[in-house]
């Protein structure tokens, strides 16, 4: 029984040992390697024919035991009809480095890269696998690339999960650009005075249906158009790219356009006119001072032209010699003056335009309408200030004629004859202008007036020098009108001797001399009348 018990116990122990050994062996050799592809995409996921996209996926041994060498195979099978790798450049990246790659298939029939691991891939090891593909044919939709990994040997080493052995990233091939737009230049500068650049001048002639955009980056302008240039005719300095949206064509990267803006300098000319010097006097020359100023940032270039209008009704006077380099041609009342002398920025040039008011303008102001300047290399943008203001002159001055009498007494006896001298005095310090001066002497009942055009001296009290030869007489219904065109000098006088005969006792008279207004350029008609009370003794 003991033996039997021993035998039984011994057997039991033996089996237990065998079992423990078996279990121990089993535990020591458990394998859980798991090759997996865990993420795949194309960037971008849409390309045009001829463009490339980068396939990226992650390979890993997700298991806790190593993948033996040459025990797994990773296959990348492209939608070769639409896009392919180049067939020679093997996948790259840290994940790809675990494999020896071979390209399977022929161009146009298939495009498969197959990799067999060339080294042990430890637990949790792996990395990205990268592969470039090129769009060949426009696809109807997103076309799939199959990626598969699977054990092919040492199968006992794997605890391979099927669900992570396969991925199918997709790529769409769109119509590619038939003809990349070619800009007509790679640099463009602003044209002063503009401070921006017009890119559109660099665009090629568009083909039918083609519209252009400009972008600040050369990348895909489909991305929300965030990079599109709003006003390509007015862009700041920078680098710009042409894009033909209607045909999805970028300009080549080498077709970037660099816009540059330089600081603008240009002449900016203005013109001003001043009150004439001297102030207008009938029949005398006055000159309009003209100033042309360059308020710009660079000297003038070429000819400057100034157009000045003298007042309507006036005549041009003789222009001064030289006139500071300005030459003027006249037509009517317009003087067109030119100068080719450069005017430095911040400087000015002056000249004068002479004119002569006429007698009919005496007592009235003259208007000099605005002058206009142009030329000098001034850009159009600076021409907004090329017109002067107008000038209204003071009243045209002229002579001021005042009459008075030189006489011996104010009483007559009947039949007495006396000589009275009518003095036509100029008191305005301006000579008469040669137009007719007339003096009207109305008749007075009881008296007779007689004018003799010959005497140059008469006796009033003493001898008086008179100017009767300068005057002519004409009868009027109520008196005599004496006229002369001989100028009376400034502050001078012309004297008219008149014989007065007393006819009627007791007659009273206002011997009156009235100088016709405006005659000789007289500007002041308020002092043209003088009367001398005379009487004849009763």
């Amino acid at each position, binding site marked *: 029984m003991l033996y039997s018990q021993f035998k039984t116990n011994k057997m039991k122990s033996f089996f237990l040992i065998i079992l423990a050994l078996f279990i121990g062996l089993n535990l020591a050799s458990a394998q859980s390697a798991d090759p997996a592809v865990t993420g795949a995409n194309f960037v971008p996921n849409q390309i045009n024919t001829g463009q490339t996209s980068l396939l990226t996926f992650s390979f890993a041994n997700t298991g806790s035991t190593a993948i033996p060498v040459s025990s797994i195979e990773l296959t990348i099978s492209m939608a070769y009809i639409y896009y392919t790798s180049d067939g020679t450049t093997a996948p790259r990246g840290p994940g790809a480095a675990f494999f020896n790659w071979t390209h399977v298939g022929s161009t146009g029939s298939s495009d498969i890269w197959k990799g067999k691991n060339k080294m042990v891939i430890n637990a949790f090891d792996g990395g990205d696998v990268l592969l470039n593909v090129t769009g060949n044919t426009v696809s109807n939709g997103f076309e799939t690339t199959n990626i598969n990994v699977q054990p092919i040997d040492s199968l006992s080493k794997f605890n391979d999960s099927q669900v992570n052995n396969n991925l199918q990233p997709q790529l769409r091939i769109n119509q590619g650009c038939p003809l990349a737009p070619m800009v007509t230049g790679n640099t463009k500068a602003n044209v002063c005075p503009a401070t921006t650049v017009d890119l559109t001048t660099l665009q090629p002639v568009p083909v039918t249906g083609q519209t252009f955009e400009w972008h600040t980056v050369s990348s895909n302008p489909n991305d929300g158009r965030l990079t599109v240039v709003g006003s390509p005719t007015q862009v700041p300095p920078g680098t710009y790219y042409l894009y033909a949206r209607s045909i999805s064509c970028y300009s080549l990267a080498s077709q970037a356009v660099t816009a540059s803006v330089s600081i603008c300098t240009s002449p900016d000319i203005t013109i001003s006119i001043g009150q004439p010097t001297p102030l207008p006097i009938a029949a005398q020359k006055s000159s309009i001072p003209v100033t042309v100023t360059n308020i710009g940032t660079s000297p003038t270039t070429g000819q400057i032209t100034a157009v000045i209008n003298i007042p309507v009704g006036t005549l041009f006077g003789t222009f001064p010699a030289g006139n500071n380099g300005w030459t003027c041609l006249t037509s009517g009342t317009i003087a067109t003056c030119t100068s080719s002398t450069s005017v430095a920025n911040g400087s000015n040039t002056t000249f004068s335009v002479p004119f002569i008011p006429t007698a009919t303008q005496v007592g*009235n102001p003259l208007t000099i309408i605005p002058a206009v300047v142009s030329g000098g290399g001034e850009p159009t943008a600076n021409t907004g200030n090329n017109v002067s203001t107008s000038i209204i002159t003071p009243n045209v001055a002229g002579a001021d004629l005042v009459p008075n009498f030189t006489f011996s007494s104010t009483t007559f006896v009947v039949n007495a004859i006396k000589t009275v001298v009518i003095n036509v005095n100029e008191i305005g310090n301006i000579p008469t202008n040669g137009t007719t001066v007339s003096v009207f002497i109305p008749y007075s009942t009881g008296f007779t007036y007689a004018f003799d055009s010959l005497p140059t001296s008469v006796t009033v009290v003493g001898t008086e020098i008179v100017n009767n030869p300068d005057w002519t007489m004409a009868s009027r219904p109520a008196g005599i009108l004496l006229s002369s065109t001989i100028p009376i000098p400034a502050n001078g006088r012309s004297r008219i001797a008149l014989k007065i005969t007393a006819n009627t006792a007791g007659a*009273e008279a206002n011997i*009156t001399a009235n100088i016709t207004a405006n005659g000789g350029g007289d500007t002041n008609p308020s002092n043209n009348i003088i009367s001398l009370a005379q009487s004849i003794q*009763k």
Partner: protein
Amino acid sequence: MKRFILTIFAFIMGLTVVFAQFADPAVTGASFSSTQIAKGQTALLTVSFANTGSTTIPINSIELTISTAYSYYTSNNNTAPTGSGAVLFNWIHIGTIGLSDVWRGSNNVAIGAFVGGDILLTVTGNAVSPSFETTNINVQPVNSFNVFFDSPVNNNLQAQLKINQDCNPICVPFSVIKLKSR
């Protein structure tokens, strides 16, 4: 626009020149045909009127007044002044006999430059005057004042006449007496 304004301005200035007015009504002489007359006799007053200015006196714009020394001599109150100067006026007689004797004329035509003439009025001596008695003659603008450049110094004259005792029963004109005295 600027040219338009300038044109208007020039036009207005032109009008100013064209329409500058210098009319000057004047009485430039006055005398009685005799400086003395006897009561009951007549004397002829002659007044020289003229527009001495170079522009026209508009119609109804001046008034010429002849105011006699009514206490001593008067017009006949009915016969308006005559003569080439008088026809330029419409005359009215103002006043009551014995209290005043005023003839006032308002020009009934435009009076051109340098136009005028004599105005004649007969007066009769009514009462002996102590001395030479004055008839006032005055001309003045009464309307359209802007057309005048009137000089007041030739707007007034004062002719004088003395009325002597009448010569009843025989009256010898004063002028005849003077003639005989030579």
